[in-house]
């Protein structure tokens, strides 16, 4: 921010008008117009119809499947994402850059490819699934499988959010805390954790919201059985397949509201945290 915006002062970086114009048009073309199209479809329906479509029993079950799997995946990602980021920032080891690059692979890989690969790996006799078969746990075609797929696609969000904060934090703070007599756990929880908390929350929110909308990788591993392993995006697809645009839009609207509230709540939590730190 810094250089921008102050009325009357000359801006260091020129081109505010141009960049603002591009920003506004990009945001409206790519975000607002598609959202509005949902509202346009819904405008042809009565409120009762929208309510009925969005609260059908099968749909309610799917909300639960999607929300619970996305939430668990986001929690797992927050814990392991922080550890991964920590390891990548704090330790120097051969192959670190390569490993760092691998983190982004879930972004680059087509989701269908990821879904098929994960399904095969997690089959009862697959490389990963085999380890769990002994405990009577099957991953592919269950809710566990859905969560696994969502962990896969969500992990980069947390790592990439936390990494820059850790890099800026530097080891000096930890050294100072330890020289002042703080134990290792105390150093982590009182010095490091508060610093990376907002970033980890951002990562959590992004991974959670992304998980709610994820379709490509999940449908291959989910099993798609109604009331058990059907995710919301699949139900939206199934409504579209029946040429039922209205119901699909109604369910989509609920999903947008979910995502919006998650991201909003996280922003709120972050501003609380930063206020508490200042005050």
């Amino acid at each position, binding site marked *: 921010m810094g250089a921008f915006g102050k009325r009357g002062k000359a801006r260091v970086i020129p081109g505010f*008008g141009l960049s*603002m114009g591009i920003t*506004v048009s990009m945001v409206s*073309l790519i975000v607002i117009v598609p959202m509005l199209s949902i509202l346009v479809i819904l405008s042809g329906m009565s409120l009762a119809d929208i309510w009925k479509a969005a609260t059908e029993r*099968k749909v309610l079950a799917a909300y639960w499947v999607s929300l619970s799997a996305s939430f668990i995946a986001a929690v797992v990602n927050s814990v392991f994402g922080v550890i991964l980021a920590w390891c990548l920032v704090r330790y120097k080891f051969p192959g670190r850059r390569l490993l760092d690059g691998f983190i982004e692979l879930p972004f680059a890989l087509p989701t269908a490819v990821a879904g098929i690969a994960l399904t095969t790996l997690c089959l009862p006799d697959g490389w990963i699934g085999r380890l769990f078969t002994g405990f009577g746990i099957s991953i592919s075609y269950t809710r566990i499988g859905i969560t696994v797929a969502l962990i896969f696609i969500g992990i980069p969000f947390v790592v990439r959010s936390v990494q820059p904060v850790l890099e800026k934090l530097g080891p000096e703070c930890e050294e100072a805390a330890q020289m002042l007599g703080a134990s290792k756990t105390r150093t982590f929880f009182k010095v490091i954790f508060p610093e990376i908390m907002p970033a980890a929350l951002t990562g959590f929110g992004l991974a959670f919201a992304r998980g709610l909308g994820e379709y490509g990788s999940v449908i291959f591993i989910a099993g798609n*059985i109604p009331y058990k392993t059907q995710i919301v995006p699949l139900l939206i697809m199934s409504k579209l397949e*029946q040429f039922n645009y209205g119901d699909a839009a109604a369910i989509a609207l609920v999903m947008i509201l979910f995502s919006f509230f998650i991201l909003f709540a996280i922003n709120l939590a972050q501003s609380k945290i930063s206020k508490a730190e200042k005050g």
Partner: protein
Amino acid sequence: MKKQSKPARIIIAALAAAIMLSSISGCGQTSASAGQSPKAPVEITNVSYDPTRELYEAYNKVFQAYWKAEADQDVTIVQSHGGSGKQARSVLEGNEADVVTLALEYDIAELEKGGLIEPGWVNEFEKNSAPYTSTIVFLVRKDNPKNIEDWDDIVVPGIEVITPDPKTSGGARWNFLAAWAFALKLYSGDEAQTTQFLKDLYTNVSVLDSGARGSTTTFVENGKGDVLLAWENEAFLSLKEHPGEFEIVTPSVSILAQPSVAIVDEVAKKRGTEEIAKAYLQHLYSDEAQKLAGENYYRPSNTAILQEFSSTFDLSLELVEIDKDFGGWEAATAKFFADDAIFDQIYEQ
């Protein structure tokens, strides 16, 4: 956000961005083979569904040669494949197809409702505009370890069935209706018992993929399940690709699947391709094309040619028909697959 002056520049930038974006989206495909024919080369688009990929790849070559001889004109055919419903929707939403060759009459009827195809298209070509047919069979693992012979063998506990979701897959609707036809006959028309039969069947379904190709992958590649309810032509393709791993079991009753073809009148009119689109679909009934269909494991609608393939297909199979036995797709969809209809009910606890 401090918004300051220079609205003109903002507008120009917005326009520039809009133009950039719109120019990215509209890229066509032009790969006409430029010959020195008196008529200019023409391009038509055939929007089809998943398993016809191999068939139309072969047929397009045949038609190109035919049209060159017949009308002395080079033709390029752009092919598109995907789930039948998805493909119909893309045409409805502006994908300019001259002809559609889809899995379900219902999907084409949806285009008729959308005003793209004129009513009466079903009778525009012979045999309800279905130049080739298929049916639903069982694909089981080598040597049929679970001794699956007919529909009542797959509803017993302990059998794992793979079939796609009728809500999202055209093929899956045929599977459901074939099972229904068998059970209705078994219980001499008692619908309550038939519904229970279907409920038992779907209790055994462990993976409900969103499309027919997805189910094939689950069964064939991932090794999941004991039996796959499959299009006959897909089942034969799996046999061909994995020799010695699977067997086809033909049940006593199945359904005559009639994938329909139609000219998308509105598009053809606009692009001036009505004549060639008609010839393209009409030629599917020629002996040459009928044989091609048989070679690609579709049952030719020409009975004489069908007989030539009697060693491939089980012709003694009793086949129910969607129009005769279910009152057409419209009625079948309302009764079985609409929201809260029978398919939804069998999943209610």
